[in-house]
């Protein structure tokens, strides 16, 4: 190869070449700097100080939410918003900024100290202008615009604000929106979210936020020394915001209205001592048992999501937050109740399946209570039911009959059938925050109370749906659907399809009905006959739910409440011969299911018949 001297020269040459290359590149940089800073320096200084380009985010309107017949449930309206940019050079001096705040506050009728706090907090959070007030009235807009020369950094913008035209209707399902939490922002940024974005905080708004959100646009405004927008930039084209997708729900506006009205009318429908009246607390939901489409869903007490969209003040928020009845809770999927006697169908299936009884089997007569070990287990009817068959026990909801079945099946026998029905599992409904139920088995009781802490008597309480058992209303509704449709598990679904701004439809992939109880077909047929008896038999506990022109199956339930009056439960499906729809009603502290919840169901089913047959017919429950 090379001798050392040659190599030395060779390296020296290369060093010089590389030095020259570096020198040339750096000379280009210096020349460019000279060009930018010296030759065009004053132009750039001018642009930086007097004639700056401001980037404005154009927030994309969220997609609308429509009912199954594409009637609007949620949309947006344009609202005047006043913003202040604390990073505007014109207000860099704190005294100037506080002067601006002081002058602005009375114009928009706000407290300047609160505003000042908001600005300081936001300044540490992001570089964006702070939204000080939404939904400005026209006189307010005029006042601020007039005073604009004295208000550097302040701007009035038009932004889409979420609008819920039906107010509290289906509020828990639709959900709420609010400004994105800075803590969530980092993770959400790759998905196209920006600081200051309005995002879903609960309900469907949260669940489908990625679809509803859309893509923000930008606009460039040339701004003068006072921070006033002079004109839209001609150099930079604006980028239009792309609205989010529309969501088409399985919900039916007419049925939703009818169900809300029925639930709210509970005071007019019931009478009796020992129950609370006045404010309704509870939940109700309507399901298509063949597909899992959720057609209506109500939770009480309700709230108005418009209050969240407009930006909620601390006081309103504290009222909602500290309300003991927790209005923000969607009781249909988030509250858990002992199912009470609604659980008896499952117990009956287990007993038939185990060969202990058949529909006609008569056990020991009910004398109002049953002695078991040291304890007396009472029937809800103190006078007793006498000797009953299984069918009659379901119809009249006799507790003593089911105590005997519970004793035969044991804690694990009951839990086994509950697991086959998937009753304690989350249903997989497309709403955030769904809670699972609780199906206690022997392992659970031992871990909770110790090996000696519980006795076989626990099975007696579980057999009438009390004890540690907990289920949500939506789980009871799916359970009813499984009984009604002959053993097919359905996944309750709210979103039927989406439509992009270009009008492109996308059906939501959903799980079809899955047979989970194939071998129990005949048993379920027998159970449905009993449930029909609950409504139609002379002594049926659910006779209050009977509606002319509809055949119905159902079951009442009364769930013991350690904190007050019992909760009233009622589940039903129509038509009895070939079930299509199922309805569950849960009313907290309203006493017996047959007395309080069944009449509410009846009120709804009457309205349903009227809607189905009416001139404005919502012909079939299906698009």
């Amino acid at each position, binding site marked *: 190869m090379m001798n050392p001297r040659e190599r030395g020269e060779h390296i020296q040459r290369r060093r010089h070449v590389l030095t020259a290359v570096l020198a040339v590149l750096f000379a280009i940089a210096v020349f460019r*700097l000279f060009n930018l800073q*010296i030759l065009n320096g004053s132009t750039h200084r001018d642009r930086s100080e007097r004639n700056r380009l401001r*980037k404005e985010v154009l927030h994309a309107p969220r997609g609308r939410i429509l009912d199954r017949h594409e009637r609007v449930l949620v949309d947006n309206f344009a609202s005047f918003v006043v913003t202040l940019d604390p990073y*505007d050079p014109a207000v860099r001096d704190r005294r100037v900024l506080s002067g601006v705040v002081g002058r602005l506050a009375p114009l928009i009728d706000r407290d300047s100290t609160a505003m000042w706090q908001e600005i300081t907090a936001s300044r540490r959070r992001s570089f964006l202008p702070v939204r000080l007030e939404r939904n400005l009235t026209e006189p307010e807009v005029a006042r601020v615009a007039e005073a604009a020369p004295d208000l550097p950094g302040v701007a009035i913008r038009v932004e889409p604000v979420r609008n819920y035209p039906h107010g509290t209707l289906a509020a828990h399902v639709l959900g709420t929106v609010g400004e994105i939490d800075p803590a969530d922002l980092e993770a959400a940024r790759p998905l196209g979210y920006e600081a200051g974005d309005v995002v879903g905080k609960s309900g469907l708004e949260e669940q489908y936020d990625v679809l509803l959100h859309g893509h923000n646009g930008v606009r460039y405004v040339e701004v003068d020394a006072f921070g006033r927008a002079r004109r839209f930039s001609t150099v930079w084209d604006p980028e239009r915001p792309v609205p989010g997708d529309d969501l088409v729900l399985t919900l039916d506006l007419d049925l939703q209205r009818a169900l809300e009205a029925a639930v709210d009318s509970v005071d007019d429908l019931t009478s009796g001592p020992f129950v609370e009246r006045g404010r309704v607390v509870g939940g109700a939901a309507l399901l298509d048992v063949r597909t899992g489409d959720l057609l209506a869903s109500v939770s009480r007490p309700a709230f108005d999501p418009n209050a969240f969209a407009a930006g909620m003040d601390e006081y309103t928020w504290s009222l909602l937050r500290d309300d003991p009845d927790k209005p923000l809770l969607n009781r249909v999927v988030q509250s858990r109740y002992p199912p009470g006697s609604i659980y008896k169908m499952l117990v009956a299936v287990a007993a038939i399946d185990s060969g202990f009884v058949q529909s006609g089997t008569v056990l020991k007569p009910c004398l109002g209570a049953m002695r078991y070990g040291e304890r007396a287990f009472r029937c809800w009817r103190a006078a007793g039911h006498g000797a009953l068959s299984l069918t009659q026990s379901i119809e009249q909801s006799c507790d003593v009959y089911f105590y005997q079945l519970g004793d035969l099946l044991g804690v694990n026998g009951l839990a086994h059938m509950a697991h086959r029905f998937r009753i304690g599992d989350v249903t997989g409904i497309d709403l955030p925050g769904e809670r699972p139920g609780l199906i206690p088995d022997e392992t659970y009781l031992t871990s909770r109370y110790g090996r000696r802490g519980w006795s076989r008597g626990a099975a007696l309480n579980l057999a009438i749906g009390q004890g540690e058992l907990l289920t949500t209303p939506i789980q009871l509704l799916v359970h009813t659907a499984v009984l009604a449709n002959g053993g097919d598990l359905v996944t309750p679904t709210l979103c039927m399809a989406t439509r992009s701004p270009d009008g492109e439809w996308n059906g939501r992939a959903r799980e079809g009905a899955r047979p989970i109880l194939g071998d129990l077909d005949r048993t379920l047929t027998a159970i449905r006959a009993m449930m029909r008896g609950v409504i139609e038999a002379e002594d049926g506990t659910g006779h209050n739910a009977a509606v002319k022109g509809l055949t119905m199956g159902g079951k009442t339930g009364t769930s013991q409440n350690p904190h007050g009056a019992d909760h009233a439960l009622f589940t039903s499906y129509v038509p009895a011969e070939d079930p299509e729809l199922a309805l569950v009603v849960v009313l907290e502290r309203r006493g017996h299911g047959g007395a309080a919840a069944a009449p509410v169901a009846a009120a709804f089913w009457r309205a349903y018949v009227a809607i189905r047959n009416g001139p404005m017919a919502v012909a079939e429950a299906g698009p």
Partner: protein
Amino acid sequence: MKRRLRRIDQWSFLALVLLVGIGVLVILSTTLETPREPLFKRHLVSLGAGLVAFTVMSLFPYRYLDALAVPLYVLGLVGLGLVLAIGLVGFGAQRWLSVGPVMVQPAEFAKLTTLVLLARFLAGRTVNPRRPDVIARAAFIVLVPMAFVLKQPDLGTALAFGGLLVAVLFWAGTPFSWLLYVAALVVTGLLTYRLPPVTGWSSPPVSGSVAASGAWLPFLKWGAFLALVLLVLRFGRRRRRLVVATLVAHVVVGLSAPLAWHRLEEYQRIRVLTFLDPGRDPSGAGYQVIQSEIAIGSGQLLGKGYLGGTQKALAYLPQQHTDFVFSVVGEEFGFVGSLVVIALFLLLLTRGLRVAHLARDRFGSLLAAGAVGILAYHVVVNLFMTMGLAPVTGLPLPFISYGGSFFVLSMSLAGLLQSIAVRRHGY
């Protein structure tokens, strides 16, 4: 020890100290009174880590790197693989690995390990850097980590590996004309990447539309360029085999460039196109460059004074503490301050070349040249990018930008240079 200390390259050490000091001041300026405030503390942490890296690397006898080259290289690849497998996502790309509370960018570490293996390979006694197969093997060493980084996807960092390869090959003795052949291939790529991709030999490129709309012009340009290359080779009296090989290589590049272009991530395409036509992307890179130019230009001769930048104070200058940190230098310290910073970089890099020249062995010489190559690539591309002379590739400025992994890498390279400098007369 004392004698060694006296042998450190004092000029480049001085430049390093001043650059790091300026960096701390500028980062403080960009974070003061803004939502970025906590970042300054994090920068002080990376400062400490960088000082440790510098000290360790300068004390470490670099000849031991020779034995460690392969394990280090493999470790670097494992890090890059982990990023793809379990890495954290940021700005639409996976670049970080979290090691306990620290976020690490293995791509920066891989630059160092790749350099070490490349230097070891080319320092071999029997390796002749004029042979095409040697060049190909050297390129392979670099292309493997580069492919990982491209996959992340991080275009700027991937191209830095290319800068490293060119610098080390040139220093090792690859003829300049070879590098020109490669440059010619790059030109072919640039001429052809926008053409409709040809996916099979039989299918014509998007039938009809090409001929109809005058889109044949790029084909014509490319043909003219090819003819020029062949003419030069012909008159340079190159061997026929070389001429044929060149022609084949150009055709292959010309056909695969459009395919590669279509496989690029959307944001990368936008960056390249934005460079060619800054007006086309007002919201992204183009806006950044314009605001950066305004910031630098408005600094004029003496700048607006420390902490006095107005562009900086706004959200107008995105990434001003990382990739666009130089625009704050330009705005607050003006032409004079920018010249000082550029001069310090030039001093550091030319002294680095001196270290490479005077190194006592070929391995050290190549290591030093590679270190200078990596640093020079970052400095030049970053400066050009902030001044609107190069596309926005997302490369930080050594010693000044915020960003732990890259700062530690830069300090390690500076330490490596000192290690080679103090041992120039023997271990």
